[in-house]
């Protein structure tokens, strides 16, 4: 058996189950080759030790599923709390912004209530409704009736001379 064959055997990781033929050849080879002897012993030890290690088995206890379901319910409750918290975290900016807008508007309203009222011209205030003609005649011609004729309108807009020239 050459070094390459030994290496292949070691790489396969099956050194603990060599055939009797392979075992004999390995024995004769490693008797003279210290490096391969060490490699073989290491591989053998590793394989046997790991197998011994995984041979240890632990079985689930009798009420394991009950324990798991309790843990699941606990996790679910935590999840609900977390989701409410998450909702608050997500909406916090929006809610804060809306509250700020309400406060600002409220502030404006209160300020408006307590601010001094502007004085209004009583003549203007007494007028129920506006029209361009009414404003015009009230400002320039106080005694003109509120229902002027066409001539009065022309005189007001064009002036008496212009009206005469016109006609």
């Amino acid at each position, binding site marked *: 058996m050459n070094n390459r064959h030994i290496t292949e055997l*070691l*790489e396969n*990781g099956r050194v*603990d189950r060599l055939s009797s033929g392979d*075992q004999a050849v*390995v*024995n004769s080879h*490693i008797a003279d080759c210290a490096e391969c002897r*060490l*490699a*073989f*012993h*290491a*591989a*053998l*030890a*590793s*394989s*046997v*030790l*790991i*197998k*011994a*290690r*995984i*041979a*240890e*088995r*632990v*079985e*689930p*206890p009798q009420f*394991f*599923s009950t*324990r*798991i*379901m309790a*843990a*699941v*319910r606990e*996790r679910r409750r935590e999840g609900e709390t977390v989701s409410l918290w998450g909702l608050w975290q997500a909406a916090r900016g929006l809610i804060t912004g809306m509250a700020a807008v309400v406060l600002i508007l409220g502030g404006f309203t209160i300020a408006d209530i307590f601010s001094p009222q502007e004085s209004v011209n009583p003549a203007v205030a007494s007028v129920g409704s506006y029209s361009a003609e009414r404003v015009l005649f009230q400002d320039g011609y106080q005694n003109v009736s509120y229902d002027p004729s066409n001539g009065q309108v022309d005189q007001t807009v064009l002036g008496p001379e212009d009206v005469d020239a016109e006609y």
Partner: protein
Amino acid sequence: MVGQAREGDDTAFEEIVRRHSGRVFKVISRFFRGRSQIEDMAQEVFLRVYTQLSGYEGRGSFEGWITRIATNTCLNELRTQKRHPESLISDLTLDESLWLEQLTSQNTVGGSPERNVILSDLSEKLLSQLPADDRLVLILLDGEEFSVKEVAEMTGWSQAKIKVRAFRARNRMKKLFKELLSKRQRSGASKKKGAARINE
């Protein structure tokens, strides 16, 4: 049943736990020894199964999917554990020493349940020196004798990565074993010298 559990049926999920807990315990006990730790890990695995159930697409077996979650949970836990490479096996027990002697003199080892306990302790000492990923690969390939392809499915790693990890882990074990043997030889030689002085 998976569909029912996904829709929030607790009874269906409890049945899943009952059916698969044996498998999950088997996976975890490959990597951890203490019963309470194994139970805690198994609980963590099933909580992950519960929360990730909506992500199970039905491709491949459900058992394979749970095995993958269990393997990854173990790997994460192994990664959090500290290794102590500088403090390699200072004292071998008498049984461990005798076993090593048999191994090196006869090039073979016999197995028995009593011996398995001794070897399991020694194995833990050696394996705890390896990085988590290497340890996982070595246990799955050399211990459980899974194929590289199967390990790739369990871990989600590429086959090339697994081969590299296995090569590295075996080399590391070889190095550790070499240190172990040289310590044993030194200790044997000093004992012989001590005995010779006493005889003189």
